[in-house]
């Protein structure tokens, strides 16, 4: 017994000794499943390469849970040093008065940093004015996935996916008439797909430049374009072509099991879809309306926010980790393991040079889509709203009502807009 005590005491002393001069920073994130392993490997490698720093990653549940928990912890003084927040929470974080905008960090540490090295649409999404507020980490966008085997069975060219909504309709009819499937198309994250449709046609979602020039006061819908989107989807649903698949990733299984032939989903599902599907998966740009202007698909996913009120040593540790994430090799490892965009242009170039995209063309789709679109309008960069979670709920609910036929597309959007505007107004009364 005595010997045990001695050993324990010694171990503790040694541990304390080693820990001295070592800065530990905590990192809360929402990466589960296979991406968790990728992330943990990156952190472990970083810690091994930096004996004086320890980044301690803590998985804190879904994005929603992570943000709720971060707020509770911040208010009680137990928040981590940096945290991953989903794109919907961006405005809340900007207004939180709880963070250090990342563009200020190099200056605070007496360094300079070239922000132009990050892929431009991602950089723009997380910037206020010209300044980057959160560190780009896991960015994705939405693309079209389709089942090439189904296309062949229906006598369609497997290398010609639909590019317009008219073609979606036409192809859908063919696939159903050929008896390949009973429903053709479904969405993941339907609320986000609505944002995508507005953005790829360069239409605003909310005023004040999508909430980027100042806090939004009103949403723009229902306007003729948003009604057109809803009407198109409702018509496709009535024809049996579109099958509503519920929120988030619920629709994926219908696609991977061959119940439907096309799916709009986040690029971050790419690896798991290819792995689960036992047919040839094709990917392409989101279909558009041929008679409408061009915008760009918007970035989703998450970014890293740095809590204010930490020592210089801690801040330096966080910053070292961010710089590490920006190294092309690390960035590429992240991309290949998860399907998220690599955040830097250097990583992108290296991937191209090593022939990765030729080998895995599905990984290229999202890039081509996002880099070929406009990057000069607020509508094409993305939406930033305080009560964004709530507003997405309203949009999803409106879509469900329009599809079920309880409300006309226009009435459903108008109902959601009234709720959204009330939420925006309430948010502004608190943040000024």
């Amino acid at each position, binding site marked *: 017994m005595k010997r045990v005590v001695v050993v324990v005491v010694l171990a503790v002393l040694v541990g304390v000794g080693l820990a001295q001069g070592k800065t530990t920073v905590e990192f809360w994130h929402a990466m*589960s*499943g*296979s991406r968790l392993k990728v992330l943990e490997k990156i952190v472990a490698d970083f810690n091994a390469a930096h004996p004086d720093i320890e980044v301690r990653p*803590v*998985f*804190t*549940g*879904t994005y929603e*849970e*992570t943000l*709720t*928990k971060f707020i*509770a*912890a911040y*208010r*009680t003084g*137990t928040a981590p040093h940096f945290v991953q927040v989903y794109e919907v929470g961006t405005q809340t974080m900007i207004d939180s008065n709880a963070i250090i905008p990342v563009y200020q960090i190099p200056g605070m540490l007496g360094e300079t940093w070239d922000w132009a090295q990050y892929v431009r649409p991602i950089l723009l999404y997380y910037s206020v004015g010209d300044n980057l507020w959160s560190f780009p980490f896991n960015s994705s966008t939405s693309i079209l996935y389709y089942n090439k085997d189904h296309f062949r069975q229906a006598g369609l060219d497997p290398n010609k996916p639909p590019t317009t909504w008219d073609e979606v309709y036409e192809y859908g009819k063919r696939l159903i008439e050929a008896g390949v499937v009973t429903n053709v198309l479904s969405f993941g994250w339907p609320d986000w797909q609505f944002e995508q449709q507005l953005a790829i046609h360069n239409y605003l979602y909310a005023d004040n430049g999508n909430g980027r020039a100042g806090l939004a006061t009103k949403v723009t819908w229902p306007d003729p374009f948003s009604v057109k989107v809803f009407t198109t989807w409702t018509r496709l649903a009535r024809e049996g072509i579109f099958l509503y698949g519920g929120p*988030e*990733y*619920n*629709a*994926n*299984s219908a696609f*991977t*099991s*061959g*119940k439907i032939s096309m799916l709009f989903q986040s690029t*971050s*599902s790419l690896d*798991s*879809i290819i792995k*689960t599907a*036992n047919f040839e998966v094709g990917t392409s740009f989101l279909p558009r309306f041929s008679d409408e202007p061009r915008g760009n698909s918007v970035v989703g996913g998450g970014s890293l926010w740095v809590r204010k009120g930490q020592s210089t040593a801690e801040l330096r540790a966080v910053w070292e980790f961010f710089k590490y994430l920006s190294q092309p090799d690390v960035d590429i490892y992240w991309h290949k393991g998860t399907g998220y965009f690599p955040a830097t242009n250097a990583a992108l170039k290296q991937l191209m040079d090593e022939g990765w995209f030729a080998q895995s063309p599905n990984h290229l789709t999202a890039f081509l889509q996002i880099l070929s679109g406009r990057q000069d309008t607020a509508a094409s960069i993305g939406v930033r709203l305080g009560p964004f979670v709530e507003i997405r709920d309203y949009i999803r609910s409106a879509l469900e009502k329009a599809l079920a036929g309880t409300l006309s597309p226009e009435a459903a959007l108008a109902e959601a807009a009234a709720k959204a505007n009330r939420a925006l107004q309430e948010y502004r009364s608190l943040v000024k």
Partner: protein
Amino acid sequence: MSRKTLYKVGLHATLLLILIAVAFPLYFTFVMGTLTHQEAYAFPPKLVPGNQFFANVTEAWHRVNLGRLMANSALVAVAVAVGKIVLSVLAAFAFTHFHFRGRILLFPLSMITQMLPLPVRIVPAYGLMASFGWLNTYYALIIPYLASTTGLLLFRQFFLTVPDELSDAARVDGAGPLRYLWNVLIPLSKTNIAALFVIEFVYMWNEYLWPLIVTTAPQMRVAQIGLKMMITSERTAAEWNIIMAGTILIMLPPLVVLIVMRRQFAQGIAMQSTK
């Protein structure tokens, strides 16, 4: 066959039919848990079990770390059941064996616990856990649950039926109240303790909302949340065969406890319904 026999056979047949109907969802769950991913997506659905059960269970087990989740659930459910029994025995003893001013508290206490279920205090209760630093700890999963009106009333009612002679005899022997409680009352209460244990174990194993908000770290999650994690994890969603294999594991412990201790549970119900 006489009319009476016919009537009885008919009655049993009806009851068995109802029983099959009620149990059918469970059977379908089991079948789904034994299929491959492709078989699971057959329409019309398959009704004959496949041979993938252990593969699916293994997959579910690894995917959401079910072992850890179920261990957490077991720990929390046992701790809460035992803690509730201890606290309510002590309080019931005080309320039945002593004459003290605090006795007027009995009624308000039982009303308060009935009137303040979790949803009416959930937001500040969460804040309280955050300020104690209890988020993602067993404390948050156990301690707020420890007050129990069911237990208090159950034991109070039982202690009132214990004849005064027993406590008189104990006093004459020079035994103090705690010794009397430990040596006499508690052994007499075995059935009630067992009944309360079943009720509270099943209750706690099945709790969902509070564990959902006070824990977020995967190693602190409980089995019920594992169900949600299976649906949303890995982002491919709804692999019903694996989800159902996991579901079967998660529902097993309270089912076993209930069936093994059904007699005590039935007595507990009888006590409650005549309270």
